[in-house]
């Protein structure tokens, strides 16, 4: 026993890691890697955000003012790809890296070097996407869904995009394998699967989804690549292929992808709401089952993104029923969160505000999803601004608000300092208001028949587009508050106690100081 203690002391006093830039390049520490994921995600959020503002500026009024249609298409495409693969997914992997080992009482991730590699694949992939803007012909302008055969017409920017997607996919798969292995093998003694914090459960399920579908997407873009350069005709009817085949493959990836983004967001909210309600999560077991059901259902509803491609009627009916069914487990989750708040002792610090904002707006996104599920109505709404509004309610107000909740929730733990509560609340209210100004009106545009992905529009749509553009600038600028608040916290925030939130009861709050030591839980805690 004393020998163990000796080694321990020896180990600590070294703190043996390189300093400066090499610390970050060579690090295998889950906390460092988590930090890098989060900063990477934030910078991509800024890049993708600027692209969104280019789009909204062009759409402020009818006519072509600042960009040409080609560049407009490149902006919509890159905005989508960068936000999905560069901003939102890495943000939640960042949370996973920081939180999973601390929440299950593990010293680090199962494969620390693999972890380093899965992060460092991201910057080259993101650079490829950004560089593609500067090659002849510019970036891919086929929409983030990269539908064939339009992709076959694109210039070399398309090839860079395909390569970027391959690398991003690799990064996700490696990260997922790491998360699955960590969660299954490295839990502290006494922590059974059904005692894992909800956040860990949601990531376990998400990681399985990622491993299952990222190769499918890689396959789809590889087929595009060979169609472009090697004379294959997977998506060309003239050679016996079918353009719609691409869409089936893409959405077989694409629909689970929606839940890859949403499910970890559910996990964060499932930690935040109980903490600020001072009450345990209601229906833990049913939450686990509902999350798993959503994940499984997500594999069998893909063609609801394709109601207008001309499927057989029976296929449309099947996909409609299956899609409507998803409302049930999603509803269960919302009800569980409400029941957690019910008769709690609620306080409304910034993380809780963002969690409630998530709950409210994600449910709104669910409502518009229900409308879109009905094929007859969707035929009217498909590829209009209604769809744009719908998925921004679930992606931005859903996933992004949940990520904000997570950042404010765990920032005191990560940095050992409290953030500025006033600024945090201001960030929430500005985001909440401007988000709705931007996206609520887009429902009306879509119902009235404005197609998405057009750089110019009929003047009857002017007013709502103006409102939306004003909202977009407000929303974009409000995000600088988050950056300022985080930097201020790191530099000069007040010291945070080990457990600043009264209701927080997972291991990182109860067993570790704020900030936690560089290597935590070298001897696992025992969970009752």
């Amino acid at each position, binding site marked *: 026993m004393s020998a163990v203690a000796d080694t321990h002391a020896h180990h600590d006093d070294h703190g043996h890691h390189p300093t400066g830039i090499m610390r970050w390049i060579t690090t295998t520490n889950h906390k460092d890697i988590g930090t890098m994921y989060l900063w990477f995600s934030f910078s991509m959020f800024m890049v993708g955000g600027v692209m969104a503002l280019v789009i909204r500026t062009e759409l402020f009024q009818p006519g072509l003012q600042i960009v040409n249609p080609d560049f407009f298409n490149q902006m919509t495409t890159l905005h989508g790809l960068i936000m999905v693969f560069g901003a939102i997914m890495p943000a939640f992997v960042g949370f996973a890296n920081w939180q999973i080992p601390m929440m299950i009482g593990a010293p680090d991730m199962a494969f620390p070097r693999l972890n380093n590699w899965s992060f460092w694949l991201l910057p080259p992939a993101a650079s490829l996407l950004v560089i593609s803007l500067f090659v002849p012909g510019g970036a891919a302008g086929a929409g983030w869904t990269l539908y064939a*055969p339009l992709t076959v017409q694109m210039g070399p920017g398309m090839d860079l995009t395909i390569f970027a997607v391959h690398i991003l996919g690799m990064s996700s798969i490696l990260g997922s394998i790491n998360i699955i292995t960590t969660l299954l093998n490295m839990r502290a003694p006494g922590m059974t699967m059904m005692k894992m914090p909800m956040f860990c459960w949601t990531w376990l399920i998400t990681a399985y989804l990622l491993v299952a579908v990222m190769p499918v997407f890689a396959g789809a873009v590889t087929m595009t690549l060979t169609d472009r350069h090697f004379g294959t005709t997977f998506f060309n009817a003239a050679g016996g292929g079918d353009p719609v085949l691409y869409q089936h493959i893409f959405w077989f990836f694409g629909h689970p992808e929606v839940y890859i983004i949403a499910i970890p967001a559910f996990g964060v909210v499932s930690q935040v709401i109980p903490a600020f309600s001072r009450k345990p999560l209601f229906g833990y077991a049913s939450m686990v089952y509902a999350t798993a059901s959503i994940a499984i259902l997500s594999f069998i509803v893909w063609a609801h993104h394709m109601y*207008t491609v*001309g499927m057989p009627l029976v296929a449309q009916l099947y996909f409609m*029923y299956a899609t409507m069914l998803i409302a049930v487990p999603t509803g269960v989750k919302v009800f569980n969160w409400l029941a957690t708040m019910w008769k709690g002792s609620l306080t409304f610090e910034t993380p809780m505000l963002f969690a409630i904002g998530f709950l409210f707006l994600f449910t709104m996104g669910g409502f518009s999803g229900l409308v879109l599920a009905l094929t007859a109505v969707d035929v009217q709404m498909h590829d209009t601004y209604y769809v744009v509004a719908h998925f921004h309610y679930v992606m931005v107000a859903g996933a992004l608000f949940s990520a904000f909740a997570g950042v404010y929730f765990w920032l005191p733990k990560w940095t050992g300092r409290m953030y500025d509560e006033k600024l945090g609340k201001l960030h929430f209210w500005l985001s909440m208001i401007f988000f709705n100004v931007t996206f609520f009106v887009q429902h009306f545009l879509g119902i009235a028949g404005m197609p998405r992905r057009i750089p110019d529009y009929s003047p009857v749509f002017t007013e709502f587009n103006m409102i939306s553009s004003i909202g977009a600038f407000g929303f974009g600028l409000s995000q600088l508050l988050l950056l300022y608040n985080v930097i201020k916290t790191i530099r000069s925030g007040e010291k945070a106690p080990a457990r600043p939130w009264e209701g927080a009861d997972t291991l990182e709050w109860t067993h570790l100081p704020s900030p936690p030591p560089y290597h935590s839980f070298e001897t696992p805690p025992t969970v009752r």
Partner: protein
Amino acid sequence: MKRTSRALSCAGLIGALYAGAAAAEFRWNFQTPGTKVAQDVSDLHLLMMAIILVIFVAVFGVMFYSIYAHRKSVGHKAAQFHENTTVEVLWTVIPTLILIVMAWPATTHLLAVRDTSQPDITIKATGIQWKWGYDYIKGEGEGINFVANLTTPQDQIYGKAPRGEHYLLETDNHVVVPVGKKIRVLVTAADVIHAWYVPALAVKQDAIPGFIRDTAFRANKEGIFRGQCAELCGKDHGFMPVVVEVVSQEKYTAWVGEQKKKLAAAAEDPNKKWELAELRARGEKVYAANCVACHQANGKGVQPAFPALDGSKIANGPLADKLAIIVNGKAGTAMQAFGKQLSPTDIAAVVTYISNAWSNKATANIAQPADVLAVRK
């Protein structure tokens, strides 16, 4: 949900809005339906909104009550319950029942939308980057065919001229159909995927190159219905509108007669020898309708996707090469095969125009329709 929010958004935004936009009408619901199916879809949407409104009030009523009553600041002590099987079963079963009830109208409406049987007239719509081609293939008007191009001038798009009433939603040729007759539209594409979309008629069908899909509508009133391409199809995706003109049966018959006459007149003798000046004048018009979007009025193109014609080697080179590229298109680029879209005379005219326009002084400076036919075989 929508109604309350509408009221809210109205109240909040009226001030900001009316400053900028006094004139234009506000649209926030479906366009006035022009078919029974469109009316039914609009009603189904309204029913959904009613159901959603009820759920909205129930769910968020609970949430906001809890936020109001169970605050720590008013001294509420947290209960510690964390499960209740009865409640959990109820909130699984009740939504399932609501969904089953909703599935019924959803199914019947879908059946109506998808019913393309027993059409009176069948029209083929072909999406081409960036316009629509139409062929009347069965029923009254059989044999009529034309291409519908956007007529909004570039000056309006770039804000150099005031915008017209139907900005971006106007074409040179309308798809004319009789009121009350069932029109089946076979939708396909020549290059990439497009979508044929007319909101007020409740039709949207993707146009898949190499495949034919169908949709149908029966307009219940006369009028002009405007829509646009709804699937991203490249640079000018936003500039290929669909305009359907529903007219009375008598007017339709008259229109068919007129079109037939025009077709006969347009069937020019391909062996006619044209003068250079005639062809140049005609070619300039053909160029303005078909080529300017990419190659631009000054012939400079948009680098690097759309090459310049002014000073180009091909434009100043041998006739056969020029004709081949226009007739057959260029694979892997947006340059489409115009061989079937334009008449031999039009192709000859545009080649002649390009060979002599701007700084071009091609040796082979004139093409005759017969030359085009030789290449088109």
